[in-house]
């Protein structure tokens, strides 16, 4: 009975933590993608200094997120985001619109992929 109660307690904690972590992850992704939209507008408008500041802010935000994501997100997804973000930063620094926008689209796609895979729905369960 003790074992049953202890394991029930642990599983309840596990489920609650999972729900919370999924929620936080999806919120973070939404925020990140919102910032990516802003970045796209800045790049299209040729506001490179603002774009540079924003990408630096995103890089910092990503570094904080990554520490947590390493624990439960597939490392290949994380590597994909990391590499694309590094390339995007480099293109913004050299003010290359076309290449930068392409990287931005890829980064957005990476986040969209994580969002779709982390979301709790019947499609993902099946």
């Amino acid at each position, binding site marked *: *009975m003790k*074992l*049953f109660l202890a*394991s*029930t307690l*642990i*599983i309840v904690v*596990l489920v609650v933590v*999972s729900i919370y972590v999924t929620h936080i992850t999806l919120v973070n992704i939404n925020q990140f993608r919102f910032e990516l939209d802003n970045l796209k507008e800045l790049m299209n408008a040729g506001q490179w200094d603002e774009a540079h500041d924003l990408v630096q802010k995103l890089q910092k935000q990503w570094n904080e997120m990554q520490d947590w994501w*390493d*624990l*439960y*997100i*597939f*490392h*290949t997804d994380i590597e994909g985001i990391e590499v694309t973000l590094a390339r995007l930063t480099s293109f913004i620094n050299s003010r290359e619109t076309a290449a930068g926008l392409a990287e931005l689209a890829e980064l957005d796609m990476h986040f969209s992929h994580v969002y779709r895979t982390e979301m709790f729905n019947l499609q993902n369960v099946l």
Partner: protein
Amino acid sequence: MLIVFVRTVIIYIMVVVLMRLMGKRQIGQLEPYELVVAIMIAELAAIPMEDKAIPLIHGLVPIFTLFFIQVCISYINMKSLWFRSFMDGSPSIVIRNGKIDIGELTKARYNINELLEQLRVKGYANIADVEFAILETSGNLSVIPKSQKRALTPADMGIDTGYEGLPLPLILDGRIQYDNLAEASLSPEWLTAELAKFGIADSREVFFASLDTQGNLFFQIRKER
């Protein structure tokens, strides 16, 4: 490489602890649902162990979830007869009153060769010696021989036998088992004195010593002197 090493250690400890918590039945004779858990845990443990791209938690969470399901099923099994029979199935009597029940054999998809093989393994080469054979839910075959064919027991001969309890190990690998000594209401001094009678000064020289219910001390020293 160090990461794989540490991940392996973590998963190994987790699986050993959980298998231990699942109980002794998990290691020995498995019911169908227990076999499923054991196979799945083995698979789940191996994947994140060798693939660094998979977060460790992706292995640990399903393993723990399986453990939880197993504990729940065991618990419900104890409480509900219907659920027990649903999960474990029920034993099939494949030989009843000395006659093979072909219907039960077919139902259990157990062929006559398998039945004969299992009977031979149990020591019954002649099927005519068997009164009952029961195919247990764990897949084992229990055999009850005809009364004329079973082994002779002291009760058959009307011989009175004394109580035979479990011998108590008093020394294991040179270490005195104080709990067992206390259970037999004996002291370490008594053991030392008994060993001294055989010229053994130090109990660490003894590899194994036990005391039977008649009070006889059996021992074996580590090295022949």
